[in-house]
């Protein structure tokens, strides 16, 4: 399982009217890896996220996720031709995420996400936030509310289990003491951690984090690194993250994909990417001929 391809993004293109936000992007993410998606502002990283998690329908391309090992990718063409959203294979399944509405991406394909600007249920308690994340299994246990209204014990047991899972996560993010406080009251760093825990309560195979370290101080940033590594190693959840904080990216990611103007300009290990002249150029700017020519003209006039 580990080391096998989990997510395959193929020729992904997203256009908004005339603007091409993502252009023919292909990359893969491996199971058990932390894959980072980096790039300058406006490179189209969040658009890629929105396409993967079903919030946008991509204009072109395919986003496929395999459950139960990469063998499932064998039926990818069959699934595509059939027009199916998912296709089950022996001990696994393939999910074509671009065909799914956003909630099914989480419910069936088990891809969870967080947001660049934190989206917690601020008027609900920390514990409630974690229980809302377990909506689908609990809904089933409550017999779509019918059995739940009658107060059957099967639901109570499941609810207790859900609270236990929530407690585990509260322990891990260090918020046990604040479980009964409204989520909106937490300090910023804790809100970030809670959002990650909430996404993890959906028991995802792939967790997509949109700038998890944004606004964190160095110590919190370090704690985040530990948390993310733990998620990768202990929970068998692979991660895909957008990040601007290069210390986080270089330290924890196993694989980095660099975007610039919606096009992939580099793809490889953190070391390879760090030394790639194209990447350095995208981040720091290059002195290409055009710039030199303009400068020469300006100087000539002066």
């Amino acid at each position: 399982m580990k080391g096998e391809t989990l997510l395959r993004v193929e020729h992904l293109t997203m256009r908004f009217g005339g603007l091409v936000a993502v252009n023919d992007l292909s990359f893969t993410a491996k199971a058990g890896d932390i894959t980072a998606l980096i790039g300058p502002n406006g490179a189209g990283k969040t658009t890629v996220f929105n396409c993967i998690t079903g919030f946008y329908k991509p204009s072109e391309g395919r986003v496929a996720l395999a459950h139960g090992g990469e063998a499932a990718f064998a039926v990818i063409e069959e699934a595509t031709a059939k027009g199916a959203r998912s296709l089950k294979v022996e001990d696994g399944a393939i999910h074509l995420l671009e065909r799914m509405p956003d909630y099914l991406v989480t419910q069936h394909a088990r891809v969870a996400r967080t947001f660049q600007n934190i989206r917690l249920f601020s008027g609900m308690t920390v514990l409630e936030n974690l229980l809302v994340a377990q909506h689908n299994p609990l809904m089933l246990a409550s017999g779509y509310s019918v059995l739940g209204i009658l107060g059957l014990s099967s639901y109570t047991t499941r609810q207790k289990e859900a609270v236990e899972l929530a407690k585990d996560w509260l322990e891990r993010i260090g918020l046990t003491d604040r479980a009964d406080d409204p989520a909106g009251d937490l300090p910023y760093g804790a809100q970030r951690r809670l959002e990650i825990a909430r996404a993890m309560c959906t028991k995802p195979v792939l967790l997509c984090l949109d700038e998890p370290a944004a606004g964190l101080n160095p110590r919190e940033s370090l704690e985040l690194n530990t948390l993310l590594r733990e998620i990768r190693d202990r929970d068998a959840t692979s991660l895909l993250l957008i990040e601007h904080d290069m210390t986080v990216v270089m330290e924890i990611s196993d694989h980095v994909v660099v975007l610039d103007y919606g096009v992939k300009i580099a793809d490889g290990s953190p070391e390879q990417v760090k030394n790639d002249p194209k990447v350095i150029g995208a981040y720091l700017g290059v002195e290409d001929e055009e710039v030199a020519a303009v400068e020469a003209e300006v100087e000539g006039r002066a």
Partner: protein
Amino acid sequence: MAVLSQSTAAGAKTGVPDRLVSALKDAGFATLVMLGLCVPLVTLRTDSEEGGQLILVPRLGLTAALCLAVFFARLGYLTVWGKQARAARQPTSRKEAIKTVATPRYSLMTIGLPLALGFALAYPLLVTLINGGLSEARYWIDLGILVLTYVMLGWGLNIVVGLAGLLDLGYVAFYAIGAYSYAILSTTFHISFWLCLPIAGILAATWGVLLGFPVLRLRGDYLAIVTLAFGEIIRLVLINWVPVTNGGAGIASIPRASFFGLPFNDDDNGFAAFFGLEFSPMHRIVFLFYLILALATLTSLVTTRLRRLPVGRAWEALREDEIACRSLGINTTTTKLTAFATGALFGGLAGSFFAVRQGFVSPESFNFLESAIILAIVVLGGMGSQVGVVIAAVVMIAGPEMLRNLGFLKAIFGENFDPSEYRLLIFGLAMVVMMIWRPRGLVSTREPTVFLKERKSISSDLVKEGHG
């Protein structure tokens, strides 16, 4: 306003005497303003003399009284109520302040709930004893029925507006559907009330889903407008679909409810005869009271239960943040539809009750004002709060009725004074006062549905109102 904030700010820094001095100054200033206003408006009154000549009547006493009233009101405001006012106005650092209130209301609730239910159960007996007879108490029992109907409607709408955060201005449509379902089914097909009740509820819920589908994508104002239109469409259909609904004339002589098969009449097989009581038309009224009490309690129980189930949490999560809901695998379409359907179901049940109580339904009973009143009950009560809805329903429905009992005011204001004419004025004033003091309703805090160690109410500052 500037004067006020300056003086209170100064008061906060320095001691009590300084605050009193500044309050006196402020009150003096307000009195001067009042005097200035009085001179052209109150002090001189034009009157006609016998010969038709115009004369000026000075009214110095009244002016002085008004100025004094303003002075003391202002002084009282600054010294007595000013403390809370200042505390509320003081800018607190919102990020850091803990917005939870360790709740005394919870313990109050545990006593208050049985107390309220006990009072409701004993209400017919109480008013009978006070008025010295069952028939004499009819007015009060009728009033109780009316209030409970609105409590039930408020609780029903609370699911849609308070929990799911979907602004529904056409709730009366479901009330109408419930009422007409019973009216038509019972007069045409002679189906008994007890069978019609669930049918009416299901029909209303179906219409709730039908309304829900087209408005799923709408939010805020747009949702409000479409639901408003839905309410009007239902009313217009009732008026114009004459073969079925009998148009504006309405449907009359709808069969009365029976006591599980025993009719309320003076026959040998009637309710009174069966229980060996002397026949009284009041038996039916008392029965209706307990019927609506049972229906309202059912509404409350189901809603409270649903809130603690995943679907209820999903409703509240939807109100808080729809996009986050979708990212957690919650199907927002079905979640919204269940909210509409559940709300509509209780509206339909209440409608059925309305029809069986009145014995007559016409489109006139289901106009927009009804929707507005039900919504006002929910909003004034505090969105999502069950207790708030009860208080608001009592105030909004029983309050105007109470105006009729203020006959003694005629002694002061003269024979032609009719207090109930001031109903809407008082209504408006109450709304304005609420907007100023309790903009999020009477009970604005939110009770969490689950807790680990301690149940803490959540301040309304953090709870969102929903956006659609």
